[in-house]
């Protein structure tokens, strides 16, 4: 009996060193549940929907995770997302070539990210407060640009749209009609791999962990903590901009409430995936699994005929359970 308890403790410590464990286990449980409970969940249609929407949110989550590891929040990602789509739509409709317009759209998101970073660093206020403010401000900008109305792109689809987020035709043909795997999935995986490499194998990544884990110690060792955080804020902006143009390339329209509430979904995904709210701990893989879990939940519940409103309630319960589990596991540390 004693040795069993010992073994469990040792296993628990191992699990605590793998921040993705809780998210992965939950994902498997939830996936299995819907596979059994929701009639058409195991269809290629539903699965393609999960990964296609999950990939757009996932690109945002990658940025948010990195920033949280650096010890900061960005609650303005949803609003920033809307701004980039409006900028792109309006520029293209004004006759700017799609590629140039796209670069300007992503650049505008990067600038909004930089503003977040500069205000946080300059004022010394918590990023939670600053980006809560810019969340409202950037939403206002999006509404102002769009005149509180939809923006659509109605001309013929440029090739750029397919590069960004066209259907993966050869893959979709393998499945039943209407299956819609899209290129954003490939971009998402590439970006996730790149960011995981940057965080774990580069000097900048090392500094991100140090800036979030113990900023005082990082400064003492000559790490330019402010510059690292500013870079992280800008990177979030760039990723939000990219996710935004990818989604627009698919839907070719944007509405004034696009991205509303995504900031908290992104933070939830990160926390479920083992990223610490206090900074210094987390993985890209974990955050992505967290995101995949939430997207699976949403799609599964919709397929079961449960109201979309219930999704938020269930997501909230999962968030709390995951944090409880993560806390329990890391008690051994």
């Amino acid at each position, binding site marked *: 009996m004693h040795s069993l308890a010992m073994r469990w403790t040792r296993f628990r410590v191992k699990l605590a060193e793998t921040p993705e464990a809780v998210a992965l286990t939950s994902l498997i449980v939830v996936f299995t549940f819907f596979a059994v409970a929701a009639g058409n969940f195991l269809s290629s249609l539903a699965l393609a929907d999960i990964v296609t929407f999950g990939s757009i949110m996932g690109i945002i989550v990658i940025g948010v995770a990195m920033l949280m590891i650096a010890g900061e929040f960005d609650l303005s990602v949803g609003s920033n997302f809307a701004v980039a789509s409006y900028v792109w739509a309006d520029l293209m409709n004004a006759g700017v070539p799609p590629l140039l317009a796209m670069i300007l759209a992503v650049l505008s998101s990067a600038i909004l990210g930089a503003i977040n970073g500069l205000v946080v660093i300059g004022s010394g206020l918590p990023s939670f407060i600053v980006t809560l403010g810019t969340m409202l401000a950037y939403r206002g900008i999006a509404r102002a640009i769009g005149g509180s109305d939809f923006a659509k792109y109605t001309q013929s689809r440029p090739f750029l749209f397919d590069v960004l987020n066209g259907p993966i035709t050869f893959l979709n043909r393998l499945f039943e009609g209407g299956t819609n795997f899209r290129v954003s999935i490939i971009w998402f995986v590439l970006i996730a791999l790149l960011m995981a*490499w940057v965080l774990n194998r580069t000097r900048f990544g*090392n500094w991100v962990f140090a800036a979030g*884990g113990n900023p005082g110690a990082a400064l003492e060792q000559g*790490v330019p903590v402010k510059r690292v955080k500013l870079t992280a804020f800008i990177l979030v902006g760039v990723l939000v901009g990219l996710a935004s143009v990818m989604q627009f390339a698919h839907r070719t329209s944007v509405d004034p409430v696009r991205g509303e509430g995504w900031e908290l979904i992104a933070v939830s995904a990160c926390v479920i995936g083992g990223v610490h709210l206090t900074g*210094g701990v987390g993985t890209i893989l974990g955050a992505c699994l967290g995101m995949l879990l939430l997207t699976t939940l949403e799609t599964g519940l919709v397929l079961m005929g449960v109201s979309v409103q219930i999704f938020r309630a269930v997501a909230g319960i999962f968030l709390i359970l995951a944090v409880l589990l993560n806390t329990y596991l890391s008690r051994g540390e």
Partner: protein
Amino acid sequence: MSGNGTDTPVVHMEKIVKRFGTITALNQVDFTVNRQEIVGLLGDNGAGKSTLIKVLTGVYPPTSGKIYFEGKLVNITSPRIARALGIETCYQDLALVPHMSITRNFFLGRELTRHLGPIHWLDLHQMDKESRDALRNIGIHIRSPREKVGKLSGGERQSIAIGRAQYFGAKLLILDEPTSALSVGETHKVLTYTLAAKERGLSVIFITHNVGHVYQVADRFVILRHGELVGSYPKEEVTEKDIASLITGERER
């Protein structure tokens, strides 16, 4: 004084004054550290110990006074400059990042990288090897360089911070309360590493409240009270008791 043929002190601070508004934190303080010497810097809370060290390490600019490093007048305006001169500080809470590995902490801010064209990445293998070897060379044995620092004991953490400073060529090591909150055994270890650092040619400033700990290793004691220098006493001239009463002011000079 050491036997390496020069009497130039590593650090000589002259008539240092530091005022914060109307408060005088340091008043005309002289402070010297010689080569291969362990100096115990003692004083009660608010005596000016940490202010003096922050002036030396470039955190605070002095209101007036001069600092000489190895005989040369220097203007230490930032911690970076202090480090470039060879002054390394080991703070108890600000030394290491608990969730990062020993290796990553050891090389933090000075990471070894490999590159292919413009793409640089961490040479983790080399860093693991060098941090393990460097720590072993100064008598610190670690289980694995990939182990998280948060799992180590307080003494082990201090020893890694000391080892790191030595590895990166520190000439003057400043230990801020290195033994507070440590067990007896752990304290002993840290004191041993401090002596070992001296053997290797470093000078050490040992800041503490605990006369007992510093008395075991220091060559000289500098005592501050209310921002003023009480005096500098070679170990032969004072007992632990004397030092304690000098700190509190029961005894005057």
